């Protein structure tokens, strides 16, 4: 197979940033997948408009992936189309990729890297660094991985085709996820301590620490709902009291 031209690859990479643009409950990112793949398929089927149409119809069907790793599937499918692999085999290949790319991306990005980068930003703010530095630090840390994954995915997918599973197995994603989680845990602890900065009264700090820390540690993911419910109830009660006492003045 002759390599797909750089212009088509760059166009596909650019389009990948919109792969979830029409996320829907029927095909998930299927329509976006076809949209991203189009520049590469136009090269593959440059002399066969009917073949291009049939190919796009196949690839706009149900598909899902972590958005940052979807380029791996895009590149691999483009390679298989260029090699004139049987469409039924390509569909089975895509079905196999769906679950793994979603799971890998969730573990590495949503559950480790992104929250670790967010903790970096939060800790920077709590420790008194300028707001723009904290925002920039978070964005730089997160997007270093984000942009690498998109480019890596397309390059490896195009090069590997059906052999893409080996490339994914050999990628250092589990180690990166582990290190990100470790860094995030340390930064989370630092941020939690730094949250007490500015609490002038030691007694207040002690009460907050004794009540809020165990609550958050115990509730985990349910803390958000608990905090919102508690703050809303306090706000409503306080406002009701304030309005009532103002009415009786």
């Amino acid at each position, binding site marked *: 197979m002759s390599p797909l031209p750089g212009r088509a690859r760059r166009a596909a990479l650019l389009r990948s*940033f*919109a792969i*979830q*643009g029409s*996320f*829907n409950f029927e095909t998930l990112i299927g*329509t*976006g997948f*076809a949209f991203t793949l189009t520049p590469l398929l136009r090269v593959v089927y440059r002399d066969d408009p009917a073949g291009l*149409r049939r190919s*796009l*119809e196949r690839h706009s069907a149900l598909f*899902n992936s972590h958005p*940052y790793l979807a380029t791996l599937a895009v590149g691999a499918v483009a390679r298989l189309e260029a090699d004139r692999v049987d469409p039924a085999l390509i569909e089975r290949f895509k079905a196999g990729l769906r679950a793994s790319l979603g799971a890998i991306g969730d573990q590495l990005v*949503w*559950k480790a890297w*992104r929250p670790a980068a*967010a*903790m970096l*930003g*939060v800790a920077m*703010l709590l*420790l008194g660094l300028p*707001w723009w530095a904290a*925002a920039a630090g*978070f*964005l730089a840390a997160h*997007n270093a991985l*984000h942009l690498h994954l998109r480019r890596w995915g397309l390059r490896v997918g195009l090069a590997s085709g059906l052999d893409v599973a080996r490339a994914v197995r050999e990628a250092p994603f589990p180690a990166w996820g582990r290190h990100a*989680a470790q860094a*995030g*845990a*340390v930064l989370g*602890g630092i*941020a939690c*301590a730094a*949250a*007490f*900065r500015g*609490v002038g*009264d030691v007694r*207040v700090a002690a009460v*907050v620490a004794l009540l*809020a*820390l165990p609550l*958050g540690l115990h*509730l*985990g*993911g349910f*803390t*958000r709902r608990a*905090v*919102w419910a*508690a*703050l*809303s109830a*306090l*706000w409503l009660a*306080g*406002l009701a009291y304030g309005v009532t006492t103002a009415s009786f003045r």
Partner: protein
Amino acid sequence: MPPEWLMLAIWGGWVALDGAALGQFMLSRPLVACLVGGWIMGAPAEVLGLAIILEAAHLVVLPAGATRYPEAGPPAAAAGAVLAALPPGNAALLAVVVATLAWEWISGRSVEAARGFNTRFVANAPVAAQPARHAGAIAVDFGRGVVLVVLAALSTGFVARLTLEYWPLGEALTGALLTAALVALLAASARIFGDHTRLWAGGLLAGAIYLVLT
């Protein structure tokens, strides 16, 4: 229309897109969306506490697959703008936090509605029409963000002003409540990163030592 409101509307649309449809550079995270919302109104330093609380609250939200989840971007942008435009104080901060977390839920439901629209408008369209419809879906999502940020800003502003007028608790007590909320949310982060509780505790100790020394 004041230019700040136009900038805020555009920023709201942009962060709505960045959440999923276009980019995903995490400009839609509360940390960034809120701070920039405050910057648009000329007082980013006044919204630091808000940005931290909203980001801490959003850490546990995982956008996995087609699950339902709160959407932070447009409400956080509105929150930053509203708080920056108000006199500084913990009463306003409390009101904005409460209103914004509610708006994040509403915003999440609007994402579901948009995805339902995409099912009819894009997925069920002829393949030849899908590229243009795909772009159309992105444009609709931008519009969704604009509407959300405007509605969230107006309603949150109203709630905050009402609170400023009638809030009975003092600054210190209100601040302590908000600190407790933040500490609980950050403590919850110990569970996000898997079985690294010792590292988290080590970070807590290091942070505490740093606070004492400085």
